[in-house]
């Protein structure tokens, strides 16, 4: 829509300072878009779970309601949320510029995540040992995949935090490190949200006892 306003004497044609754009904002925005894509992967797995969560697809094996414990899931949920809280405390420390605070927050987040993974993977191992592994039925294939997709995200988050522990120590709070810490915060909250949806949809709506 060429609005042909006339150029005047004071019309600015060039902007010498314009390309000094905000790197952190572009990076967090880009990473947010990545999370949007990641969320769609998860959504696809959830869609499969919704379809396969019925007796026909259990192939004679158990459904979630037969082996999931709502109270244990609740415990796991609190651990995940605790981990997020710990990381959030790290970002509060980041505002104050405290290397120690950031490191402690991340270590706390890592430890809680490891406990969570221990519980979750232990459950899956027990299920497999009882003969209800992922190859038992379409339903169990999807259940394992859903849980392990979340676990994979957690695993990458832990690896990322370990790298950031080193970088905070080596580099301090440079622009790069801060951008990564902020993206990691989004990522960590993202995986927690995924777990909360898993808990609500798979455990609670799925009729876990």
């Amino acid at each position, binding site marked *: *829509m060429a609005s042909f306003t006339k150029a005047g004497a004071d019309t600015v044609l060039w902007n010498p300072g314009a390309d000094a754009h905000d790197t952190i904002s572009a990076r967090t925005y880009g990473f947010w878009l990545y999370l949007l894509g990641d969320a769609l992967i998860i959504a696809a797995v959830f869609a499969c779970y919704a379809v396969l969560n019925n007796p026909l697809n259990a192939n004679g094996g158990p459904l979630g309601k037969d082996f999931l414990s709502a109270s244990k899931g609740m415990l796991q949920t609190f651990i995940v949320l605790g981990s997020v809280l710990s990381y959030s405390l790290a970002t509060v420390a980041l505002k104050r510029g405290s290397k120690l605070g950031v490191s402690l927050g991340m270590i706390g987040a890592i430890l809680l995540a490891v406990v969570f993974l221990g519980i979750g993977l232990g459950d899956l191992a027990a299920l497999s040992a009882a003969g209800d592994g992922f190859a038992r039925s379409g339903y169990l294939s999807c259940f394992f995949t859903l849980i392990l997709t979340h676990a994979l995200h957690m695993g990458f988050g832990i690896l990322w935090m370990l790298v950031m522990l080193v970088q905070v120590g080596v580099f301090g709070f440079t622009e790069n490190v801060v951008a990564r810490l902020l993206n990691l915060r989004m990522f960590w909250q993202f995986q927690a949200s995924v777990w909360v949806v898993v808990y609500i949809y798979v455990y609670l709506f799925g009729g876990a006892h």
Partner: protein
Amino acid sequence: MRYWRKLGLLAPLALAGCSTDNMRLFHPVGLMGGLEYHYTMWITGIMLLIIVPTVLMTIIFPLRYHHSRNAKYTPDWHFSAVIEILAWAIPLGMVVVLAYMSVSAIYRIDPWTTPALADAPGASLPPVKVEVIATDWQWVFVYPDENIATIDDLVVPAGRRVQLTMTATEAMNGFYIPQVAPMVDAMPAMISKDAFEIDQPAEFTGFSTDFSGAGFSWMYFKTRILAQADYDAWVKSVQASQNQLTYDVFTQKIAQPQVNYGAVPSYFSAPNAGSLFGKVVMDAMMGKTYPVPDSLTKSVSSTEGEAPASPAAK
């Protein structure tokens, strides 16, 4: 005119009128095919009302406003509320009409219930039930009420509704008899339905439309519509056949992957025809598959001469 290529759009429609051998879809037979043809023509015709003027404008404007012709030139004219409203309203109106037609058509022709066939002359007669099993790569037609079965030859009486129930053993196939019946997929572990009624004796060729592997190109079958008396005689002759189709014969021979070069038909008496279809569906649900051997994939090349003969030739 140099812009002759646009005629490509009209060519198939124009040629349709002058040839009977080609363009099967313009020569429907029976109620289902007729309905499909009817809707195709209407939907296409309505769209041509809008497409033809647009094509003409697309061709005429570049010539009319070519820079050498010094026609009226308005470089800054870039918006007109009237034209924009029309540009949205005309397609919208057309889509409303077409969507109405499409939706009402599907409620008439729905292959599962085929409401349209309620108006057919044979609606008062009991339908002929045929169970269709697509194997790798043949069509098995089971007649549960007559206790017979055929391979690659669908024989039905004229003037009665033919009710098809379909499944497959291994791969998904599309069941289709052009001019006669809507295309419906035959799928492993699932059941689908189709139906048609033809009131005069006739012959057609049906085939698979959804790719299913090396023998796919040979998955065609004769479709013969016989007069009722001829049909009855045919059923009797097949019932007397020495070839028997049992569940064991089916799973051990017929359902094993094989290419039926030339789609040679076979005929069977099948004393337990009523239970075969259900068992095949159940097998697939329980995970039974018919793995395709290398000899029928990588090295299927030139085996026609020494093809594994159809397990039970006529």
